[in-house]
């Protein structure tokens, strides 16, 4: 029974997936878009339930032959991905119902399958489980990226979702191969696949090579330079509500693996992985911010901005201590609500196939004041401006990195952040300053989408004003990982 208690979250997500499958199969097939939203709401309710339950269920302990740990760290990451999935589901609900009224089950099943992978990842303490969960997370995303394959773009051209998915796929598949190759070397040289075992295994050149190849594989998932090139294209081509989810949840999972594998498992070999990781962080911040400057499509812009954001969080990972991990978690929490919110606003503001260019935002302040306000908050948060949660996120990440002796990278990050401000402000300029009178229709966010945006906004502002609880929670979760209190850890 205790095994089930520890594994409750993956089980709950799997159960929800089964429930969705059953409802989808058993419900009458002639559903309209209106009634069809029920399935989406079911998913959302289920996820909300799981999220709520995570605050009362104590899942700590080991399960599945010690390959899964359900402590504070796991719970925290799970809350983040489930929360992201919930917000993503709310945001996508109408889109899915409108796009494929009769085949909605596919979308939700794939989403939940991917989520299942994500909730296992942070708990995995064995590389086999880790890699399976990681792929379980990744493969459905390829399919989901192609989900809008029948859409037409604003200029009448055919959908680019296929291309989006393909680019995601090719880079992803190649990275998976690299990861597997690396894992083979790593586990082979260490003779074990458990993380605790890896930590104790002596360093070998081949093992180090394997470790670094794995880093490359994870780098792909989080869009770290130079594994980032799919990001803008996929964000531009795939359905926006899905991109909202794609832009946050896999990154949370990917970074949790990074923390799990490198900080916790291979922390002893920090000397080997820190320099490349630091370089990648620097490149991510630089390339992301620089290439975002000339973008005019908001999804591409947010894509590049996301690359830059990953650069910042990598600094905290590179710090390699409990504080760094804690601040990574804090950053991710802030990033989830902020970036997801930003994409949802872009989605809502461009509703009705108006396109996602900067000009789609013109006069937003007049047409949809709430969306404009939300956009303001999200962009300022992304830019790291005080009293939005993104400020604290960036601050902590940089502080953690400086404390760990990465002052040079921190300075570069701070300088590059100003560059970032330029393009965020340009979006605000489009939304607040440029206005062609009365030309554009008023975008209306549906209740679900509006709810999702409002939740994100509340989180961004609320945590911006009062970040202490989240900081404490993140710190506790990180301590759980980096200094395991349970003696079970050493098998």
């Amino acid at each position: 029974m205790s095994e089930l208690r520890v594994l409750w979250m993956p089980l709950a997500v799997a159960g929800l997936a089964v429930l969705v499958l059953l409802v989808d199969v058993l419900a009458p097939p002639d559903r309209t878009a209106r009634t069809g939203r029920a399935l989406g709401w079911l998913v959302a309710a289920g996820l909300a339930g799981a999220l709520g339950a995570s605050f009362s269920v104590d899942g700590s302990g080991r399960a599945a032959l010690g390959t899964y740990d359900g402590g504070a760290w796991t719970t925290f990451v799970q809350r983040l991905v489930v929360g992201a999935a919930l917000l993503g589901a709310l945001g996508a609900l109408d889109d899915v119902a409108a796009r494929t009224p009769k085949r909605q089950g596919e979308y939700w099943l794939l989403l939940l399958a991917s989520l299942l992978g994500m909730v296992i990842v942070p708990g995995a303490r064995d590389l086999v489980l880790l890699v399976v969960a990681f792929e379980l997370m990744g493969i459905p995303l390829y399919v989901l990226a192609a989900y809008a394959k029948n859409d037409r773009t604003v200029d009448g051209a055919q959908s680019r979702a296929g291309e989006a998915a393909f680019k995601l796929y090719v880079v992803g598949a190649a990275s998976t191969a690299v990861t597997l190759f690396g894992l083979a070397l790593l586990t082979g040289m260490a003779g074990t696949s458990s993380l605790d075992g890896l930590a104790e295994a002596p360093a070998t050149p081949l093992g180090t090579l394997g470790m670094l190849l794995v880093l490359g594989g994870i780098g792909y998932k989080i869009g770290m330079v130079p594994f980032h090139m799919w990001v803008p294209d996929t964000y531009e081509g795939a359905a926006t509500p899905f991109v909202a989810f794609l832009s946050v949840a896999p990154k949370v999972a990917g970074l949790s693996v990074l923390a799990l594998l490198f900080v916790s498992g291979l922390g002893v070999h920090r000397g080997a992985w820190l320099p490349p990781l630091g370089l990648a962080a620097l490149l991510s911040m630089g390339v992301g911010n620089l290439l975002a400057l000339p973008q005019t499509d908001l999804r591409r812009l947010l894509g590049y901005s996301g690359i830059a954001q990953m650069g910042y969080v990598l600094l905290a990972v590179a710090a390699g201590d409990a504080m760094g991990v804690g601040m990574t978690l804090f950053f991710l929490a802030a990033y989830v609500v902020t970036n997801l919110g930003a994409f949802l606003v872009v989605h809502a503001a461009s509703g009705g196939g108006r396109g996602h260019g900067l000009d789609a935002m013109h006069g937003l302040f007049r047409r949809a004041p709430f969306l404009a306000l939300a956009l303001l908050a999200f962009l300022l948060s992304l830019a790291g401006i005080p009293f939005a949660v993104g400020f604290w996120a960036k601050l902590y990440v940089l502080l953690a990195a400086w404390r760990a002796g990465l002052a040079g990278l921190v300075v570069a990050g701070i300088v590059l952040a100003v560059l970032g401000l330029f393009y965020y402000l340009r979006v605000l300029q489009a939304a607040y300053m440029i206005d062609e009178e009365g030309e554009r229709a008023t975008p209306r966010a549906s209740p679900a989408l509006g709810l999702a945006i409002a939740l994100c906004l509340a989180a961004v502002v609320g945590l911006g004003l009062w970040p202490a609880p989240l900081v404490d929670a993140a710190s506790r979760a990180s301590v759980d990982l980096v200094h395991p209190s349970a003696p079970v850890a050493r098998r």
Partner: protein
Amino acid sequence: MTPTTLALTTLVAPASAALVLAVVPGLRSRGWPAAALCILASVVSLGAALGVLSGCLADPTPSVLAVPWLRTSSVTVAEIGVRVDGVVASMLSVVTLVALSVQVFSLGYMHDEPRPAFGRYFAYHALFLLSMDVLVVAPNLLQLFAGWELVGVTSYLLIGFYYRKPSAARAAVKAFWVTKFADMGFLAGLLTLFVASGSFGWDAHLAPGTATVVTLLLFFAVVGKSAQFPLHVWLPDAMEGPTPVSALLHAATMVAAGVFLVVRADPLFAQAEATRTVMLVLGAATALFAALLALVQTDIKKVLAYSTCSQLGYMVAALGAGSMIGGFFHLTTHAFFKALLFLAAGSAIHAVHSNEIGDMGGLARRMPVTGGAFVVGALALAGVPGFSGFFSKDLVLEAVEGKLASLPWAALLATAFLTAFYMGRVVVVAFFGAPTGEKAERAHEPGWSMRGPLVVLGVLAAGGGVFAAPFAHLYGREYHFEMGVGPSLAAALAIGGFGAAYLVFGRAKGAPLPAPLALVDRVAKTSIVNRVYEVGYRRVALALADGLAWIDRYIVDGLINLLGYGTLEAGARARAVQTGLAPDYVLAAMLGVAGLAVWAVLR
């Protein structure tokens, strides 16, 4: 009432008037209430000032009432308040008396102005009186500086009173610029003084070098304020203001503030012989130079303006020669007769609506009071024996005699002759002879408000010499007058000057200027000093400003723009990396992998 309370009253009265007029626009725009209030304040001030004077005559011990005004590090840096002593008492009386006369005169003179302008005029006057009193009663040089600057502002406002007239507007600004330029010396002098002595008092004992620096800096300000060469250029232009203003500010009181400063700071100047020498030379030179220029002016106010420069030169020379009493007494008598001259000139101008002496003529017959006043003033100015100017000038000449090989003395004597000559010219051309135009023929005497002050000032200008003894007493000195060689010579020159003027101008009306004068005229018309400033302003200051502004816009800001441009350009160029081809994306990732592998191997 104690002397300090009385002195305070001279501040409070005009301050109240100015404040009320500032905050109650209704009073100002109606005109007459403003005038009434202002004159009331002046009457009170005059009464208080005379009270101070009589108190001082009885007991010349200085008394001070002051409160801390600036404090740093909990130490008082400067105080404000009032000080009463002989210098203050006499200056205060002169200032308030002349101010009241001028204000009363203005009632008639400015009568035709629109009501709001009339009110504004008197509001400025109240402000001026306040500023001047602040200056006079100052217990230290900082407050004196404050008053000094404030009178500068009121001068600016009053010169620009006819602000719609471009020439008046220019003149006002010019006056302010020139005096402000000189005031930098005052400020620097104050700072040097404070750092050297720890206070802004004028009784500090300084090292000889410091004393010279401080006094030279202060004297620089005097050159500006008292219109000494080469900063005299603003004074003739300042005649754009209403004539009573010229009488009060630009003849009797404000321009004399420079002289007052030197008198006040006499203990400092006494420590700096070098400065005094400079003053002596510059004063004498200005006296002569300005008198020459006065010779060729045809505008009656310009004549008087240059004459003011010249007489201020006298005072400065006296102070340079170390005769505080000579300079200061000449200041006093000058205040009376120059105010008188200006007011009389104003009366004439009011009658003929022209400043040109050529447009006047024979005014003495139609306007006997005005004519008489002007003649009295001219005689006093020229230093004809018996009139006030004779006695004060005598003190000056006596002080200067023998200094620097008597060259300044000679210059001042020459000036005395020239003074008599140009005043004689104005008297002859404007007030005697035949009227030259219709207006001059129809000129008539103004009302009582204008005649009254003429009479009062006329009496003072004529008989002011009697004040010499009590004046000296205020400073604890003795005064004797002896008709020796010097005074006789000066008297002869003065009378000779008038005679010469009559000979030249009395008969041949409208005749061309005699040859030497024509030469002076030609030189004067080039206005070489003004040109220099003009070039300095346009070619140096404005050009520098334009150049810096260009650099700021296109180089300094340009570099910052360039940074932004470069970044944007870099972003735009770097986009090309994102080719859209999936294999390229894989290639990038694999290069990353290769990099990692290389690192793993080489590490």
